[in-house]
């Protein structure tokens, strides 16, 4: 049932990416010349020990943070050097986000949160797609609740709906299950995996949980800002083994 896309097409690409925080003696090289190709229609997980640079990689790839050197592309569009305005517009129209926590605006209802990126763009969602998503994520009867009235799992599902609604080139998910119990976490991961398999969505997920990574098509392993390994069709055990090797 897998829709494997041609390996040449990319959802996002980073080439020779270097990110240095600070300067002089206190400079930290968070990314040290990394090149990764995130395939379109693929679910890629980024793993690595704390401080390995996995979140920095995601932030740079998503255009949330500036890079020291190297290039980043979303789809075929190079984004390094874009103005803040152009970058913001690109994020709004072509990138989706799911964060670990604090994912929703507390003042907006679930429906308003879901539609926020499209509202910001001044566009209306495709009504069929919108309804389909809500059904798929089981949110139809929660639309008028404020985030504070939703459970953690429901909140994360709202965040997923928000990311999926605009059919972005790529969705970046930063520890999406980090704050959830295992059942809600599994539900969110199912949604992400199904959106890749059934809807052809491209997803890049940062996680430190091997069983979450097992939902992905491909796992890339980072250590000290460098790419140190890669697994295709991972299982939790294989991921754990790979991580153990890194730690040794």
């Amino acid at each position, binding site marked *: 049932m897998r829709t494997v896309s041609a390996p040449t097409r990319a959802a996002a690409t980073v080439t020779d990416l270097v990110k240095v925080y600070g300067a002089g003696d206190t400079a930290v090289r968070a990314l040290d010349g990394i090149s990764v190709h995130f395939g379109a229609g693929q679910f890629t997980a980024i793993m690595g020990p704390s401080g390995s640079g996995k979140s920095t990689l995601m932030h740079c790839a998503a255009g949330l*943070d500036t890079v020291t050197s190297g290039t980043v592309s979303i789809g075929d569009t190079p984004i390094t050097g874009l103005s803040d305005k152009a970058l*913001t517009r690109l994020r*709004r129209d072509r990138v989706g986000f799911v964060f670990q926590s*604090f*994912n929703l605006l507390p*003042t907006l209802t679930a429906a308003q949160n879901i539609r*926020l*990126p499209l509202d910001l763009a001044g566009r209306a969602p495709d009504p069929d797609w919108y309804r389909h998503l809500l059904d798929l994520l089981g949110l139809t009867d929660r639309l008028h609740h404020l985030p504070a009235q939703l459970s953690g799992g429901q909140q994360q599902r709202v965040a997923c709906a928000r990311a999926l609604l605009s059919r972005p080139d790529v969705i970046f998910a930063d520890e999406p299950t980090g704050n959830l119990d295992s059942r809600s976490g599994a539900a969110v991961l199912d949604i992400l995996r199904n959106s890749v398999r059934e809807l052809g969505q491209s997803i890049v997920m940062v996680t430190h949980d091997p069983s979450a990574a097992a939902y992905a098509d491909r796992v890339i392993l980072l250590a000290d800002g460098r790419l140190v390994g890669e697994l295709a069709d991972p299982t939790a055990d294989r991921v754990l083994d790979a991580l153990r090797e890194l730690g040794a």
Partner: protein
Amino acid sequence: MIRTTLAGLRAHKLRLVASALAIVLGVGFVAGILVFNDTAKAALLDEFARAAKNVDLAVQPPPDTELPLSTVDTLRAVPGVSAVDGRMRAELPLLDRRGRLVGNGGEPGVAISAGTVPALRGYDVQAGQVPSGPTEAALDADTVARTGYRLGDTVTVLDRQQVRQPLTLVGIVGFGTSKQFAGQAVVVLSPDAMTRLTGVTGYREVVATAVAGTPVTALVARAGSVLPAARISTGDAYRDDLANDAISQLTAFRTVLLVFAVIACVVSAFVIYNTFTILMAQRVRELALLRCVGARRGQIFTSVLLESTVVGLIGAGLGLGLGIGVGYGLFSGVGVGGPLPSHAVVLTAVPIVAAFTIGVLVTVASAVIPAVRATRVSPLAALRAGPSTMGPRTRRRMLLIVPAGLAGGVGTGLSIVGSTAHGDAEFDTLLVVAGGLANFLAVLIVSPLFVGPFTAALGALPGRWFGSPVRLAVANARRNPGRTAATTATLMIGLGLMSAATVSLSTVRATASDQLTQHYPFDYVVTPSRSTPTIPTVVAERLRAQPGLGLVAEVRTSKATVDGRDIVLGSLSDATVARQALPLTTGSVQDFRSGSVILYASAPAAQGKHVGDTVSVSTSDGHRGTYLVVGLVAGRSQTGDAVLTWEDFAHLVPAAVDDSVLIRAAGGVNPVDSRAAVESVTDDYPLVTVQSLAEWRAQITQSVDTLIAVVGALLAVAIIIALIGIMNTLSLSILERTRESALTRALGLTRGQLRATLLAEALLMGLVGSAVGIAFGLLYGWATVRVIFTGFAPVVSIPVGPLSAYLAAAGVAAVLAAVLPARTAARASIVSAMAES
């Protein structure tokens, strides 16, 4: 605990800047007024030093009288007195080379006697000599400079019959640093000339020097025994007395200013309350941690109050510094060159004590409620994950509604009683104003309940037009109604007072203008100068002889009593005019004939009088008569509150002279010619002024506009503090929402849109606060003015232009206040902002 507090204070010092600034401004205002007052007082004391130079003993007459010429001899006979001189003083109009009055805002000059003892002169001779002959005069140096007169020139003055009299200028005198005569032209005359020109026959004061070695107090006692009726004082006391007279006028000025300073302090209190509430909400985790490690509730409470005390002390210190600057600026700006001489700034203990007391009290009192709330934080809150906010949602609505209902009930009751009772207008006005204040308090208390929906309503349409940024702004402004309410309350206060003043003053203007149009069908009014409030009777006679003028009517007034109560008696020389000028509410003008009186219902002496009653009128010099009330008039009189026929008035007040002359041009005469006809007569009388009704109306308009501007300037401090409050609330709210802003940025909100969101939030707060304030001011401005004009309906003027300008200005100012916080928020890096907890 103290160390923890101070460390916290250092860490959060930027967040407390707004509180300190609010206190600095409030305290600076109060201190400035006090410093101004002290400096002015000291300057006035110095000013009178010249008049008291060499004076050991001063004799002054009982009020409103003069000392007889014999006083000099009587005093000279007192043992221990060495030299004695009498000082005369009277008004004397001086004309310039072109025959116009030399004056300071319509005030004619004064004449003083030259004096016979050089050491006791109140002036210094700068050039020429002291006048001695009956046609000689000396002028003060300022006037000489202004008019260009030179020694030997002939100068012209008007004697008490307003006849021109030529004098030869023989001397130029100066008064040292003293500005006792405050820009007035001073003519020094010999005693003979003084009496001839001004009619003065006595001394304003008699001054003396003592024989060396004589104790002054003994001298005062001895002089007192020979001059029992006079007031006798030492030279020093004399100087202080003179100064105190001038200072009493300053005190009234100070009181008005202090009222506005109190308003500024109240507004500051709101800003401080809000700051501490927000700070406590942001610090819930920290407070909870303190409780976890063993801090008692009392310690938390004390810690918060200590923090506010430090803020109050710092604010008060800076405010005092500002106040000294403001006080001196006010003093040099308002006073010097006008009524006050220059003087170095004076700092007494009063402003210092006031600054620190007010600064600390206001700050600490405003922090009490937030401090109490801080003690309610549960230690468990430290362990709880998620954003740390102290929920104001737990506040029960009843806690607001009950006290607001009470205040509103009292306020509405007072207002209704004040509006419907027809007793003393002043007392009724006071009732309405008090009711207004109580109702305003009610509005402030319930404002957390209505600002949310109001903001939403206001933002609904723009939200539809401008999309998400505005909708986010509305949502943000609504999320914490208590905070938004306290922020907007400050603007409500400032703009409420401002618009109440504007509405009532505009109504006064419109009403006065309407009265003029309806009841004063004249083209010109001749009025006397302020200090010589009569017009020579010959003026009206000569005007009547002018062919271009159709109607000339004199108005005369006099003090009298009606059935024992004081009233101003008036009359018009032309019966037709009188009938026209008196819009009766009851009775008929046709009945107005000899033996009848028309009363203005607003006069206290007219209370309870009806048409058909008989009243007895008596004057101070013993004339009396009984008159039948034939009509009652509402409104404010321009012609006295009890109007008699011309004949009856002449009988009752035979010595009366004209107060004003009303003129209507003859039919078909154009304004230029009729004006020329009037001025051909009045030019001979420099002390009378001619105004066309158009000018008069313009003058009323101008004075109302000036008053509105003054009120605006005085409220400016309060409004600036309110804007600081908006800036502060917004900055602190933005700080709280750092992660949220980052999230929206990640999701596609551009920097510009984020800025727009925050600016829109400020704009909404500004508009909500000022709209409520203006609505309230409109209502109570109208209610107050209705009561002031007892007995008749004022022409209510709702100055749409100025009020919308206030609203727009408040909106713009609120947006400007948000520019800096919005910039900071938009600049933040998304990644680091997301990481913040």
